[in-house]
C-alpha cells in the first residue's frame, strides 16, 4: 500500500517507515469512527434542547431533565441486583454441571450435555410468549424473580459449555490425587476444581454481566414498571415521555458506563471467553 508501483523501490527502511505511518493513520480513522458516537453523546448530553438545536453552548439541563423523568439511581440499582442474582445462579449451576460433564461422565451424560448446550440455539423470541404466560401465572413477573430466572436460564447453556471446556483442560490425575487423598467427588469439585477455575468464572461473570446489563426485551416484559432495569427504562423513556435529545444522550451515557468500565477492566477475560467458546 505504501509502496509506489512502477517507481524504483524505496529503500527498505524508508518503505517500512511509510507503511507504519500509513497504518497508524488508518487506525486513527477507524478509532474515530468507533469513538464518535460516544463523543457525540458526551457532547450533547451537556446541552439544553435549545443549545442542541444551535449546536453551541453547554449546560446541565439535559441531566436535570433526565433525572426528572427517569429514576436513574433506582433503575441502576435494579440492574445491579438483577445482574447479581442471575449471575449467581448461572455460576452455581454452570460450574457444578460443567465439572460433572467434563470429569464425572455417567451413562448418557454426553447426550444431556449436548441437550443443554444446544439450548443456546433457542432464540428468546421463540419462547418468550409461553415463558411470559408461565411466569405471570406463577406471579413471578411482579418482582425481580421472573427476569432473574429467565436471564439465568438464557445464560446457563453457554456458561456450562465454557466451564466444561475449561474443566476438560484440568488433568484427570489431579482429580484422582484428590480422591486418593480422601476427598469425595463433591468435595473435590469444591476444594480443587472450583478454585482452579477462577479465570473461567471471571470470564462467565463478565460475559453475563454485559449481556444482562445491556438487555432490553426481558427487562421490558418480565419486570414490573417500578422495578425496571436502566436499559429498559431508557428504551421506554425514548419511546414516550421525553423527546429531549440531551436528556436521552445523558441517559445513554450513564447507562453505558458500568458495562464499559467492566469491559475495560476485564477485556482479557472477554477475549478468553471467546476462545474457550470456540472449543479452545
Amino acid at each position, binding site marked *: 500500500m505504501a509502496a509506489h508501483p512502477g517507481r524504483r523501490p524505496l529503500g527498505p527502511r524508508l518503505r517500512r517507515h511509510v507503511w*507504519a505511518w500509513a497504518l*497508524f493513520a*488508518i*487506525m486513527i480513522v477507524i478509532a474515530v*469512527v*468507533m*469513538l464518535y458516537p*460516544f463523543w457525540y*453523546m458526551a457532547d450533547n448530553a451537556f446541552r439544553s434542547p435549545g443549545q442542541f438545536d444551535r449546536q453551541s453552548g453547554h449546560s446541565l439541563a439535559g441531566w436535570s431533565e433526565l433525572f426528572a423523568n427517569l429514576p436513574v439511581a433506582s433503575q441502576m440499582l435494579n440492574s445491579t441486583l438483577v445482574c447479581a442474582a442471575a449471575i449467581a445462579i448461572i455460576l452455581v*449451576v454452570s460450574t*457444578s*454441571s460443567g465439572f*460433572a460433564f467434563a470429569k*464425572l*461422565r*455417567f*451413562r448418557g451424560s454426553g447426550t*444431556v450435555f449436548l441437550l443443554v*448446550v444446544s*439450548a443456546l440455539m*433457542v*432464540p428468546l*423470541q*421463540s*419462547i418468550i*410468549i*409461553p*415463558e*411470559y*404466560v408461565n411466569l*405471570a401465572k406463577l406471579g413471578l413477573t411482579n418482582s425481580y424473580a421472573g427476569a432473574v*430466572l*429467565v436471564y439465568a436460564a438464557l445464560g446457563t*447453556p453457554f456458561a*456450562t459449555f465454557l466451564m466444561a471446556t475449561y474443566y476438560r483442560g484440568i488433568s*484427570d490425575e489431579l482429580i*484422582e490425587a484428590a*480422591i486418593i487423598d480422601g476427598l469425595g467427588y*463433591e468435595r473435590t*469439585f469444591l476444594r480443587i476444581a472450583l478454585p482452579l477455575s477462577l479465570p473461567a468464572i471471571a470470564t462467565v461473570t463478565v460475559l453475563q454481566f*454485559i449481556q444482562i446489563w*445491556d*438487555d*432490553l426485551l426481558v427487562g421490558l*416484559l418480565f419486570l414490573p414498571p417500578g422495578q425496571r432495569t436502566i*436499559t429498559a427504562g*431508557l*428504551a421506554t423513556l*425514548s*419511546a414516550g415521555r421525553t423527546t429531549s435529545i440531551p436528556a*436521552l444522550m445523558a441517559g*445513554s451515557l450513564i*447507562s*453505558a458506563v458500568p*458495562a464499559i468500565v467492566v*469491559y475495560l477492566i476485564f477485556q482479557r477475560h*472477554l*477475549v478468553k471467553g471467546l476462545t474457550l467458546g*470456540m*472449543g479452545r
Partner: protein
Amino acid sequence: MIAAARSRSSRLAARRRRAGILLSLPAVALVVALLGVPIGQAVYYSMTIWNGITATWVGPSAYASTFTDPIFWRVLENNALLLLAVPFAIGIPLVIAALLNEHVRGWRFFRSVYFLPTAISWVVIGMFALRFFSATGVLNQVLAHFGLGPSATDMLAGETSALAALAITFVWSMIGTNTMIFLTGMATLDPTLIEAARVDGLSRWQIFFRVQLPLLTRFVQFAFVITVISAFSALFSLIFVMTGGGPGFGTTTLEFFVYQTGFQQVQFGTGALYGIILFVIMALVGLVQLRLIRPSDGEGW
C-alpha cells in the same frame, strides 16, 4: 482416564455417577423448565388462537394461513435483506483485525477501542443511530458539508432507507465481536509460517490471502454464524429504539414481529407461531454450523 466407563462398576464408579448426576441436575432442571418446556408449549400454542388465558385449537392450518399472509412474507423479506449486511459485518472486521495484527505502535489502545461496541447495549447504539440518520442528523450535516446537501433526507422515514440504516448500524455493532474473533484467530497462527512465507518472497497481501486467510477458515465460519444469529435474533432493541418496526413494516423483522403480534396486538397464538418459525430457521443455521465446524477438526464441539 477416569472418564472411561466400567464394565463392572466399582463402588468408586457408583459414587462418581451419583456425584455427576447430582451436580449436573440444577443446570438441566433450569434449562428444561425455562427453555425446553416453553419451546414445547410454543409449538402447541402456535396452532391455537390464544389470548394468554383461553386457547382455542386451530390446528396446523394456522401455519397455512400464515404462509399466505403477505405481511409475513414482507417481514421475512426484511430478514433476508438484512443478511446482505453479513458480508460487510465480516469483511470489515477481518481487515481491521489484519491491521491490528501488524502490531503498530499503540495497537493495544486501538484494540480496546475497536472492541468497545461489544460492551455497549443495542439500546444505546440505537439511541445514537436515531440522531445520526435523522433529517437534521450528523449524516446529513456531513453530506451537506461536502456539498451534497440537497440529497439530505431522513433515512429513517423511507421503508428501504430505514432498513439500510438499520443494517449499517448492525454492521457497526458487530465490528467489536468479529474483530475480536479474527484477532484471536490470528494469534493462534504459527508466526514461523508467516516468516517462512516472507522468506519465500510473498508480499504482504499474498501472505494475507494465501497463508493467513485459509488458516482462519474456522474463525470466519464462527463469525459468520454469530453474525447471522445476531441478525435474526438480536436486533430487537435496535428496532425498538430506532424505528419501532416502521415505517409501515419497513424494518419489522421476524423477531420484532413476534413482539408486535404477541404483546402489542395480544395475539399470543400467532406470536408463538412466528417464534417457532424463527426457531426452525435458527436450528437450520445451527445445523450448518455443526456441519461446518465438525469436519475442520475432530475435537470441535
